[in-house]
Structure formats: C-alpha cells, structure tokens
C-alpha cells in the first residue's frame, strides 16, 4: 500500500516538474527573402517569441507582422497594408513538435539536426510545414536555427500582375534563436 502512495507522489512531482521545464525567448529573429532578377526584398523581425516544452518536445513561435522591418519604408507599408494585412491578421504563429526531441541532452555540448513539424498560421491560413532544424547546446546555452520556404499562394497572398516580376512566388524564411532561457 505504501509503495503506491510513493509512486503517486513521484508521478505527481514529475508531472508538475516536467510541466515547468520550459525554455523560451523573446528575442528570436525571423528574416524572409524574396529574390528576383528585378529586385531583392528582405525583412527582419528581431522580437520573435518562442517557447519549447522539453518533456513533450512541443515548440511554439509567435511573431507580430508589424515587427518586420524593411530597408524601404514604402515596402514595409505595402507589406502591412496590401499583402499580409496586419490589421486583420496581426500575428504569424507556429505550433509543432521537435521529432525525437528527447534525444537532446541539455547538459552536454552537442549539435543536433532534428525535424520540426507543425502548423504555420499566417494571413488567416494554417498549413502544415516540416523543416530540418539545427539545435545546439554550447556551455549550457541552447540555440536553434532553421531555413524553409513557403509559397505565397498557399497563404492566400496575392501579388498584382504589375509587380509579379518583382516578388518571388516562393519566399525563403530563416529562423534564428540565439539563446533560449529557462522559464521560471
């Protein structure tokens, strides 16, 4: 009987303990690129939120669309007003899992290439994506990065015929988390 009580306490402790083992950041960065022969477009957001639950390997991202900075102010205005419609769809979010995330040993300096799969929501459309991410543990600092592409048409973002040569139909996205910190 006593053994069951003990098991119960362990289970309870471990579940609450795991629930709190989360890493997060508020200074992640996302940069996207559109390269064409006419012009290159690039914008970055350095205030990307991300949170990673170690036990379940679940990972989430959130970025404010108005947080993307362009070199050309007019491009930024057009991005917000005409393409991504920031007033209607202020955020892009990702909810997914790191496959085999439990392989990561946070105490040992090592680099991992793991698949991250989940749902990317932007411009009011949710699509499943999958990408190979590099997760690095170096002197206790956990960093992560990945590159992937999305099609504008998948997210219902229309490019007027007049500027089709200026904007690539496929946008390259690079995500970089310099350092995750433990959530208290």
């Amino acid at each position: 009987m006593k053994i069951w009580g003990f098991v119960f306490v362990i289970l309870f402790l471990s579940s609450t303990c795991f629930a709190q083992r989360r890493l997060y950041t508020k200074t992640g960065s996302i940069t996207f690129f559109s390269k064409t022969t006419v012009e290159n477009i690039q914008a970055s957001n350095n205030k990307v939120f991300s949170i990673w639950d170690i036990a379940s390997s679940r990972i989430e991202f959130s970025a404010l669309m108005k947080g993307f900075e362009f070199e050309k102010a007019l491009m930024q205005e057009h991005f917000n007003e005409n393409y991504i419609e920031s007033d209607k769809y202020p955020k892009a979010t990702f909810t997914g899992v790191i496959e085999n995330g439990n392989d990561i040993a946070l105490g040992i300096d090592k680099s991992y290439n793991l698949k991250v799969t989940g749902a990317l929501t932007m411009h009011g459309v949710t699509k499943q994506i999958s990408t190979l991410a590099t997760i690095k543990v170096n002197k206790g600092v956990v960093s992560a990065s990945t590159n992937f592409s999305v099609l504008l048409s998948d997210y219902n973002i229309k490019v007027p015929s007049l500027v089709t040569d200026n904007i690539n139909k496929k946008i390259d996205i690079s995500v970089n988390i310099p350092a995750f910190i433990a959530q208290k």
Partner: protein
Amino acid sequence: MKKIVMLICFGVSLHTAKAQDESMLKSIEDSLPTTEKVTGAFKSTRVINAHSTEMLAKGNLDFRILHRFGFVSAGVKQLFGLDAASMRLSFDYGITNNIMIGIGRSTFRKEIDAFIKGRILQQTKGAKIMPISLLVAAGYAVNTEESFAVVNKPKNIVDRSAYYVQTIIGRKFSSKFSLQLSPIFVHTNFPVNATDDQNIFAMGGGARYKVSKRIALTLDYHHPFGNLDSSYTAPLSLGVDIETGGHVFQLHFSNATGMNERAYITQTTGDFFKGDIRLGFNLSRIFKVGRRH
C-alpha cells in the same frame, strides 16, 4: 485502494495533458509591448491638393507630377478641357520620419513654392492610445510671371510673395476610412484683385475610403472665409487613388487649377456643381535616396 490511486494518477496525467493543449505562448505573451502606431491613413502625403496626415519616411524622395486640365464644360471643341493643361512639378524629401520639406513649380502664374511639414502627434493604439495625428505645415509661394497690370503692378519679390500655415488633424477610423480637418491661414502680399483680402482663413476637410487594397476614393475640400472676388469659389475635389508598387496615381475631378495652397485656396474659379470640373491627376513616385536608419 489500488484502483483509487490509479485513478488519481490517471487524473494527474490528464491534467498535465490538458494544460499542454492550451498555447504555451500565453505564459510569456502577457508582457508584449502593445502600443502600435497607426499608419497608412492616406496613400500619399497629399489628399488631393491638401497636405494629408501622411509623411515621407526618412531618406525618401517623392517626385510628383501634377496635371490639371481645362473645364470639362468647355465641350468637345476643347476635348472636354484636355487642350488646356496646367502642371506642377515638385520634389519632396523626408529629413526624418517626422519632418519633410518640398519645393515645386507651377505653370499657373509661374509660381514657385516651398514648404516644411512636421508631425507633432501620431495616432497610436494599444497600451497607450493617441486618438489623432496632428501635423503642421508652413509654406511660401512666389509668382514669377510678368505682370501687365497698368496700375498696382508688383514692384518686387515681396509683392509677389505669399505665405501659409496649416494644421492637419486626422484620424484613421478603420483600415478603410480616414478623415482629417485642415484649417489653413494664407497671407498674400499683393492679391490679384485689389479688393481681395490679404489674409484668408480657410477650413479644410479631407477623407479617404478604401474600396480595395490598392484603390481608394478621396475627397478634398476647403472653404475660404474672408473677402474674395465673387468669381472665386471654394475648391472641391473628388478622386481615386490607385497604388502600383512605388507609384501612386491620384486621378480626380476638381474645380481648382492651382496646385499650391495660395493658388487653390484664394484663386479657384468655377462652380463644381454647374459642370465647371477639371480632370486632373497627381503622379507620385518615391525614390529611396538616403538611409532609413
């Protein structure tokens, strides 16, 4: 007893599973800085004739080509006014995100004008709310055309000069609808008609309604107060803004020929509602010449 313990364990694991279903981000998103600037109340720095609540970004150069044709009521012999064209060329530049300057030259009275415009308040939403945008503009105009007046001939550059100050108070009510009020004071040293007041105050109003992402309807009106010749009327313009990448085309119908503040406030002729309407367009092309940061 065993069963009860098992049930409790099961319950605990269910509880953690449920907690994970909710977005984990909620736990860190509460500290988001949520004050946000409201941008894009108008497509251009001008509603049609009047300064709008929009500013050029730092380092941006706006090359504007403005045309006003003759009265549509002139009929087919004048190709509904297209035979007569009056224009203004101008360069505007954003010194900072809140200060811009511009120079222009108009066909009408061969007038050269310059202005400086500054933003004092910008509309924001979120944590800190600022319901309106507030801007001020000040300008100078000098006409350089030869005067054939027998009496009251302008003697020097001072006689040919005019000045204005304007306040622009505007609000973007929704992503589609924006409205602004723009009271303006114009001083002309030597009005065309000797009986016209040197000082004219006018109340201005402008509005924008977006019909699609890149097309908007605009309205621009100024009502002058003060003694002006009875042939002068209040400038009213109705237009369509069409945006194509770096260009904004502003097509409109208006009774005003003048394209600077002195000209359209104190020297507009023709009754809009009696067919004295001109076709006109503003073409704005923005070049990035300076660095943004």
